[in-house]
């Protein structure tokens, strides 16, 4: 059905999108502002970007963040995929319901609680807080997102594909690697993208579990903003938005492709 564009339609779309994106657009626009004052426009400039690349503190934080995000997303993808396979395949093991619930609980758990409990754990086992504690914490909370994404794909996966592989001479693990994994791979990748983006964004859990020398970018931005917003921060945020948007778009495209492949099995 193609509805005609009425004034009401147009204005509600405009108002809705403005509500969602105006703040972000403002931030992006002001990152190209010549003036040091954030609220006064003084002409176009990319000087804050070049200054940004000379700010060692922010660059260090960005490097930490990318490494944390990469490692945690990769580990969470492996673990989350395994969890999804276990949940979908072995439907008759004892305690499946409890296990399912436990995998999903972190989805709805307030971040403050996740962060605090992880902090308590690291203190209790006397684990020096720093890069690895943040990474571990990120693995913990992004694992369940990966599991959800992969599980939704596995539910519609025809198990006879794997049986056919075994029938043709594949031992079970090979059958998984040669047939199941390639077929669900788009979902695995979009799970990884999701985990990567979540880790990149996270402020609360990182603040709880980080230690000296492992300041992530969101932490750095937050601490700087408390001293006043500078156009430099706007520039960092613009770059972050670009990365996250790209990640989300790729994940969405992969999901679409996955739906297409799924229809043709």
């Amino acid at each position, binding site marked *: 059905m193609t509805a005609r564009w009425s004034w009401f339609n147009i204005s509600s779309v405009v108002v809705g999108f403005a509500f969602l994106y105006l703040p972000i657009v403002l931030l992006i626009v002001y990152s190209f502002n010549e003036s040091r004052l954030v609220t006064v426009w003084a002409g176009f400039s990319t000087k804050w970007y070049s200054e940004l690349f000379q700010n060692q503190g922010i660059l260090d934080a960005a490097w930490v963040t990318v490494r944390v995000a990469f490692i945690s997303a990769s580990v969470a993808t492996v673990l989350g995929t395994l969890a999804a396979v276990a949940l979908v395949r072995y439907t008759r093991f004892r305690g499946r319901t409890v296990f399912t619930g436990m995998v999903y609980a972190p989805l709805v758990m307030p971040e403050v609680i996740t962060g605090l409990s992880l902090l308590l754990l690291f203190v209790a086992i006397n684990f020096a807080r720093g890069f690895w504690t943040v990474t571990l914490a990120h693995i913990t909370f992004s694992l369940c997102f990966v599991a959800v994404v992969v599980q939704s794909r596995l539910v519609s996966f025809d198990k006879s594909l794997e049986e*056919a592989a075994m029938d043709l001479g594949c031992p079970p693990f090979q*059958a998984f690697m040669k047939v199941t994994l*390639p077929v669900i791979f788009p979902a695995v990748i979009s799970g990884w993208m999701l985990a990567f983006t979540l880790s990149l964004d996270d402020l609360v859990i990182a603040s709880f579990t980080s230690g000296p020398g492992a300041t992530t970018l969101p932490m750095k931005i937050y601490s700087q903003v408390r001293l006043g917003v500078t156009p430099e921060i706007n520039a960092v945020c613009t770059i972050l938005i670009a990365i996250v948007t790209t990640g989300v778009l790729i994940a969405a495209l992969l999901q679409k492709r996955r739906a297409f492949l799924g229809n043709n099995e």
Partner: protein
Amino acid sequence: MPSLGSIRRSFAPWDDPAAKPYISFKNVTKRFGDFVAVDNLSLDVYEREFFSLLGPSGCGKTTLLRMLAGFEEPTEGELYLDGQPLKGVPPHKRPVNMMFQSYALFPHMSVADNIAFGLKQDGMEKGARDERVAQMLKLVKLEEFARRKPHQLSGGQRQRVALARAVAKRPKLLILDEPLGALDKKLREETQFELMDLQQELGLTFMIVTHDQEEAMTMSDRIAVMDKGIIAQIGTPAEIYEAPDTRYVADFIGSVNTLEGKVVSSDESHVTIEGPDGRIVGGLRGSKAPADGQTVWFAIRPEKMQVSREKPAEAANALEGEVWDVAYLGDMTIINVKLESGNVVQAAMINRSRLVDDPIGYDERIWLSFSADSGIMLER
């Protein structure tokens, strides 16, 4: 008694006591929780046989196949392939290939890669492998589709790829789970003959699961009709059709009329029964006549009854009734006749002539007649 059927009669290892079975199910039981899918079943299938398992859904036929392929282990009993016990042998080590009902083609691989999958797994050299793939593609007439992905093929083409993939490894035994279930009628009929030719050409043993009785009749050397985890009857298509063991089998294969009655008298080949529809003389199954007074059922196929307006002068059996329904199918006309007792029986008339002056119509009183050998007595 004249022998039943004469098609493909030269091949009958099951009648030869010295023949060794290729597949043997020995007292196999399979339970899923409380549900008994296969109930203490024994079955022998011979080399190069085209064997069908026929039954309604949930009768255990697919479970039987899956046990043979190794996806399920019997709860009790033993399974032998070529004399070797199969217990504990995982699917990838069994010299058996299966064609799946959903075809289970690998969506991320081309047609050629799908067919080559099992060969690669066996470590076959690339040259020999390519040759075999080409040969298989030719066999299923898909040469020009080698590079396509499964989702770019029609249902019939996918079915053929699945078949080529399953036979590419040259298994001695091919098991097929509803191989034609997803095809339309016309394509199914063509494919049935293709499957038969393929089986002959490659000299394979085929074990096929189907719920389509016509399909089983067309292709099989022998059919096992299954009912709730047990085998109701095993026999050649002609035996199953002309001499069913039970009313269940008679009813499952083709259409049949069953009339109840009590035995009045019997000799070594015929039985006379008396029921609400009068006296009927019919053939005896086997050599043991039922005792007088026992309740039995007389089963007769619709096409074995003559329809006439006048009472036939010389007929072993004749029933009078009123035409209740007429269905013209082109090749034949089906007439449902309501007998005096209220029972409705079906008769089929072959339409030999294009034009009939005075076709039998609704509400007419007609006679159905049949010889003493047309129908059979069933004790169950």
